């Protein structure tokens, strides 16, 4: 290997879109075979930088662009491919109806000699790429039958067929469970051991720290710095990314004297969760954590009336309730913020205002029709109360950032004046800075007397933001912790063990 010089070296990269500087003179270096992390909040310029490197955008005059020590005058997407620069986008860009081999060897199929396909060469290339990753997959099965983690592997293998030397992975773990993430990390290690440099773009800090050798942090289009990962802590990375210091402190308080709002007794749904019992008091925030697949979301959906329990009881303010559907639960004052904001929680093409009143339409009626003035009143009240940053309420909700979208999604449920608010993975796809804002809202609502359940697979999130933490695994409550009497490390080792 050419150990003397970096594989990729950029200096003074500036990019401007319509008068806005997206990159303000950024430098970036990747060494051969290293795992490098590119970190920063949404909009900091990470994607713009990747697009400069792959030739989609041109940097302004004065930039220096070296690949393998040689200057590159004008990068184009085709040149980037032939140099072995590959990007694995978050959506993977795979073909679901094709087989694993056809996906991995797609470039070979498209460039076939005389316009014909050589199936044997494609199969061989697929086998070879998978073998290099140390993975055993049936290459003839359709891609759509594979779980998302294995599709990632297919996307990586496809990059290898293109003789990759530098692979960018954009948020590769966003939809993976913990064990799938571990598996992916091992694959990335194999890849880097075989001499391919990998640049990881991620907001999930834990795995970034686990896998990378070095990290480059961007903020608002500028370089914050390049740091060795060894000795780095999550809170330090957050500080570098946001420029602010979030002093995490336990907020747990006692609610012994408060009345019980929700009481769950031996609730069971076969194959999902069993023998779940807890009390939720007025103004209390209860955290439920555990790995993906622990039965957390299934429990929440049952409390929300979308699934029927097979046995056990739900008591709301002392009275046993039985919900036929979530309409009954909503009427009884239970609100549930879905874990999947993009496809389930919000109607992306619709306006902010329409999304916000979606759950409370019956409260803005006048003579059986939607009253525009009542609707406007509800919308402006919640937008100002939750501090949502918007242009006008008629803009489509997809124009908002993840954090602001989540605020609207919460407002949608607050508009029904719930007694209990269940937040399922409320910070997925939300920037570190905006997460703190969401939990400020949670704290305020709890102080006003709302009872809240926060579900998250990130133990620190519930540790710092709830009064009690329940650890759930394999459908059962394992233990209840008081954050004041346990350290975060102890909680994490219990949950991630």
């Amino acid at each position: 290997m050419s150990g003397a010089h970096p594989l990729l070296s950029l200096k003074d990269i500036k990019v401007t879109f319509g008068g806005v500087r997206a990159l303000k003179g950024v430098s970036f270096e990747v060494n051969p075979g290293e795992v490098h992390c590119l970190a920063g909040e949404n909009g900091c310029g990470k994607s713009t930088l990747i697009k400069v490197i792959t030739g989609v955008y041109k940097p302004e005059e004065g930039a220096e662009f070296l690949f393998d020590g040689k200057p590159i005058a004008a990068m184009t997407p085709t040149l980037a491919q032939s140099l072995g620069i590959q990007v694995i986008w978050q959506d993977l860009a795979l073909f679901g109806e094709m087989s694993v081999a056809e996906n991995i060897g797609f470039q070979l199929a498209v460039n076939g000699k005389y316009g014909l396909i050589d199936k044997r060469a494609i199969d061989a290339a697929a086998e070879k790429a998978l073998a290099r990753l140390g993975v055993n997959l049936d290459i003839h099965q359709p891609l759509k039958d594979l779980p998302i983690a294995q599709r990632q592997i297919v996307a990586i293998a496809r990059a290898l067929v293109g003789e990759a030397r530098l692979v960018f992975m954009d948020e590769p773990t966003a939809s993976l469970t913990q064990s799938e993430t571990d598996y992916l990390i091992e694959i990335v290690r194999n890849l880097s051991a075989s001499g391919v440099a990998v640049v990881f773009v991620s907001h999930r800090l834990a795995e970034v720290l686990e896998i990378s050798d070095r990290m480059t942090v961007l903020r608002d289009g500028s370089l914050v710095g390049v740091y060795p990962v060894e000795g780095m802590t999550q809170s330090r990375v957050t500080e570098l990314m946001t420029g602010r210091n979030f002093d995490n402190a336990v907020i747990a308080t006692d609610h012994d004297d408060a009345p019980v709002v929700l009481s769950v007794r031996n609730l069971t749904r076969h194959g999902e969760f069993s023998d779940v019992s807890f009390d939720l008091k007025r103004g209390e925030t209860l955290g439920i954590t555990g790995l993906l697949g622990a039965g957390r979301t299934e429990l929440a959906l049952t409390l929300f009336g979308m699934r029927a329990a097979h046995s056990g009881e739900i008591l709301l303010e002392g009275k046993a309730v039985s919900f036929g559907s979530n309409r009954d639960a909503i009427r009884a004052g239970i609100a549930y913020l879905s874990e999947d904001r993009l496809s389930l929680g919000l109607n992306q093409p619709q306006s902010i205002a329409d999304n916000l009143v979606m759950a409370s339409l019956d409260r803005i009626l006048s003579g059986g029709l939607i009253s525009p003035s009542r609707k406007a009143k509800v919308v402006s009240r919640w937008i100002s109360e939750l501090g949502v940053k918007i242009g006008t309420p008629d803009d489509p909700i997809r124009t908002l950032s993840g954090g602001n979208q989540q605020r609207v999604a919460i407002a949608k449920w607050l508009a029904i004046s719930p007694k209990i608010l269940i937040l399922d993975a409320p910070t997925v796809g939300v920037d570190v800075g905006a997460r703190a804002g969401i939990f400020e809202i949670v704290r305020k609502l709890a102080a006003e007397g709302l009872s809240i359940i926060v579900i998250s697979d990130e133990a620190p999130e519930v540790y710092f933001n709830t009064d009690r933490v329940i650890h759930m695994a394999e459908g059962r409550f394992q233990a209840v912790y008081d954050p004041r009497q346990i350290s975060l490390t102890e909680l994490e080792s219990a949950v991630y063990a």
Partner: protein
Amino acid sequence: MRRLVSGHTTEFTLLAVMVLLCIGLSFGTDRFFTISNAFDVLNVSAVNIIFAVGLLVVLISGGIDISFAVAASVVQYVAVLALAALGGGNWAEGFIIAGVVGIGLGLINAFLVYRLQIISIVATISTFNIFFGLLMFFTKGVSIYNLPDWLSNRVVFYEHEMADGSWVELTLPVVVMVLCCIATSFMISRTTTGRKLYAFGDNPEGARRFGINIGAMHYISFGWMGLMAGIAGLMQAHYAQEVVPNALYGRELDVLAATVLGGARLGGGKGSVLGCVLGVLLVSITQNGLNLMGVSPFAFKMIVGAIILAAITLSSARFDKLLPDALKSSARKGSQRS
């Protein structure tokens, strides 16, 4: 072998349904299970199969076409009038004119879908109305019965009289249909163009990132459909020995149903020539069998509809959905979380 079956579940289900249907019909009527009847079914189905393989290419690339059957009627008229102007013409000229006019009509659809960004179902419903409207307006609904002799005389490649006195005939439409199937199958499964069509239909954004020319995909798929529609139109004129402006009106839905029945996915990215052929044949066999059994023709559509529903349910049903909740919960959890 197991991989062959699991990779082509739709085709195998259809085949199984067809075998069951044939067994049932051969008990129902003694005329059904004869070689000459099998050739009859093929002769009758040839035109629809040619349409179906053309439509298959459009479906694979993620589009849909409603206009192809009336486009074929337009081709018949234009071709017959042009051949008369050429002083009679011959088979070679006939195929060239039909093919070129058919491709031209297909490219109009591609232009609307690609350039004007009209979704294909709306664009082709519009051209369906425009093509048919223009045809009825200019022909005033008048049919053409005096076709050139070469076009209306039956071309038989093979004939043989069976012991019972019935005839086995292999006619031109069947031979052309086989050639169209081979050509389409080669194009979609052996060439880089075919692979790009599948990719574009499966994940347009993914295909774009690979630098696939999106415009070319539209023009190729609708152009191929147009070529097949042109050839099918010529074969139908030959088979019917006349050109009637509304003869093919309504075929589009029969062919579409048969093609989807054969495993082509309306969302794009999936489908095979074998599936198309089986889909069309299943419908034809049903009609043929009902005919031989003496069922009233007024009941045909109803029964054909029911057979299509049954076959599509069998080939796409998730049987676990029919199980009671308690039994399936563990299985489903496994599939979600794996």
